[in-house]
């Protein structure tokens, strides 16, 4: 689960990392009030940032400065009127604009290749790390955190030394790097990225400079959300499609696509393969949908509702390889679902494996169109979508 910058900042704060002051607002008036408070606290400029869960908001006009509370209000109004990559901006973050001496990149993430927590730092902060990697891979330094102990102090220090930090800044950097890994581990985050980690003037401390986390990106592990009940408030339910929510709550893995053939499959690999074969047969899949292992009739019915909620669906392909999942249960669910559904869409059903014979009998009695092989099923579905109802 991706969380907004505002919540990511809160998470970093909870773990004691240096995050500048700031507030969120969903209306221009609230943005003005927040800006007034920040100006009163000494800010000379504020930055107003769209809270959307996609990259590139800066280029889309979602990040702007304001030099007065009145300007903040009008800037916030403009940003709140934006839609960035299909996502309407519903909220902005207002924070004091920092006087940045230098920008650093720092992140901790789950790395599948090394099967651990990879920490990356670069002196080229402010850019996306993929860009840095493409331009100059040597500009990125890496440490693998200890799987049981987290990032060890010498590793954190080594990262900082290798991007040119010394003295007090090095000490601060090491604490932040260690903290990022602690957040990843304790909050069950797949990714904790601070970019830029900014060096700002700080006349009050030895060295005269300090590090602040100016922007943060955090992705939480969906599998671990149960043990962080407080994070559920961070789910952006407003931006979530109601259909996506129904799927999530039913334990169905569903991704809407642009095509015309709705797919219902058990198993993620087989579901992907079904999409591939539909595409190969000249059709366009309307969705990815995995009903999971051992699905019963009610889940099958829910999956059917989810598929049919997409008006673009012209035909449905059901592809079940019974293992834990019993074919007859699926057949029953399909028969029930068809009885209830408001919109009639042609369907081809392929059920093999456990209790396939019983399923075939049920489907035949209910006059379903069936298929035996995977390729045949895909081809039939494409034909149905092209030719309308059978």
């Amino acid at each position: 689960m991706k969380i907004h910058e505002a919540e990511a900042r809160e998470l970093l704060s909870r773990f004691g990392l240096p995050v500048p002051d700031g507030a969120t607002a969903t209306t221009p008036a609230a943005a003005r009030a927040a800006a007034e408070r920040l100006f009163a606290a000494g800010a000379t400029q504020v930055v107003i940032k769209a809270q959307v869960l996609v990259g590139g908001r800066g280029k889309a006009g979602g990040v702007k400065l304001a030099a007065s509370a009145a300007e903040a209000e009008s800037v916030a109004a403009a940003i709140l009127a934006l839609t960035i990559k299909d996502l309407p901006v519903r909220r902005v973050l207002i924070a004091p604009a920092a006087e940045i001496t230098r920008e650093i990149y720092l992140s901790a993430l789950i790395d599948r290749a090394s099967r651990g927590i990879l920490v990356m730092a670069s002196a080229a902060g402010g850019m996306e790390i993929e860009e840095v990697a493409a331009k100059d891979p040597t500009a990125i330094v890496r440490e693998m955190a200890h799987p049981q102990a987290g990032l060890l102090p010498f590793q954190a220090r080594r990262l900082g030394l290798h991007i040119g930090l010394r003295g007090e800044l090095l000490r601060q950097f090491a604490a932040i790097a260690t903290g990022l890994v602690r957040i990843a581990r304790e909050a069950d985050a797949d990714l904790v990225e601070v970019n830029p980690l900014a060096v700002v003037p700080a006349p009050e401390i030895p060295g005269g400079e300090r590090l602040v986390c100016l922007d943060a990106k955090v992705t939480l592990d969906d599998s671990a959300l149960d043990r962080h009940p407080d994070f559920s408030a961070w789910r952006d339910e407003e931006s979530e499609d109601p259909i996506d929510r129904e799927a999530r709550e039913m334990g169905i893995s569903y991704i809407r696509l642009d095509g015309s053939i709705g797919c219902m499959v058990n198993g993620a690999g087989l579901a992907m393969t079904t999409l591939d074969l539909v595409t190969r047969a000249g059709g366009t899949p309307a969705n990815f949908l995995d009903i999971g292992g051992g699905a019963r009739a009610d889940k099958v019915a829910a999956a059917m509702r989810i598929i049919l909620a997409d008006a673009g669906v012209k035909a449905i392909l059901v592809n079940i390889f019974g293992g834990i999942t019993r074919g007859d249960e699926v057949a029953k669910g399909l028969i029930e679902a068809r009885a209830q559904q408001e919109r009639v869409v042609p369907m081809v059903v392929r059920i093999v494996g456990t209790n396939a014979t019983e399923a075939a009998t049920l489907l035949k009695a209910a006059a379903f169109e069936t298929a035996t092989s995977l390729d045949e099923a895909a081809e039939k579905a494409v034909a149905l979508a092209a030719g309308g109802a059978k």
Partner: protein
Amino acid sequence: MSILVGPETRLVVQGLTGREGGFHAAQMVAYGTKIVAGVTPGRGGERALDESVPVYDTVSDAVRETGANTSCIFVPAAGAADAIAEAAEAGVKTIFCITEGIPVHDMVRALASVREYGARLIGPNCPGATSPGANGRGTKVGIIPASIHLPGDVGVVSRSGTLTYEAVQSMTDAGIGQSTCLGIGGDPIIGTTFRDALELFATDTATRAIVLIGEIGGAAEEEAAAWAAANLSHLPRVAFIAGRAAPEGRRMGHAGAIVSGASGRAIDKIAALEAAGFKVAGSPTELPRLLIEAGYSPR
């Protein structure tokens, strides 16, 4: 011969008294697998599977009393990583974890324990492995349906569940049998990778050809291809990659199945495999034909 599971397997089922554990354990026994113990904390002293298998409180008790050398874990996600560490610490050398939805940081730690004790983990979120034997029996650990198998000499390794069954069924239908079918799991952090599996098959005298079933996400297929190019040229090898049609940036069901930017794409994996001498199928149903084309002949 076979890899990972076979007649020498002495299995302890962690979570045997649960619904899933009990159901699949019965299937395993029916297929011929030697289940020597179950583990459910607090139920030590009971017997399960029609009184035929003793239940212990801890894996270390089970290992000490029964000499179990392999474990199959059906424990719910919240406790599964701990179950893996417990098995490793108890001296179990081959650990299958079927459980889906284990938090990824739990897996990082569990994998460290597995390495610390010199064990091997398969999974999590995997269907297990089957080494088919004669007369419709053999050894299966996990949840792969027994009915799809035929004994033979093709090694199958896959990140997926039902897609594997599909591929294996098509082989069996074509009369091509399997030495071992192994599902390594669809999670981002897994104990045994494609490359690890290929290394095992490479030293298995009973395996005369390889079927690799990959999917989008990560670079495990590319890594395996590179290894195969250098070490596996003596074996006919075919592959299928799921997810050519998958959009970028979305997790396709499996926690690990995601294309991020230009990384993890199906076309790159297919190219890497083809460069390493794999014939890559457009549909799982084509695998038997491609095996023959790659030079494999069933005995």
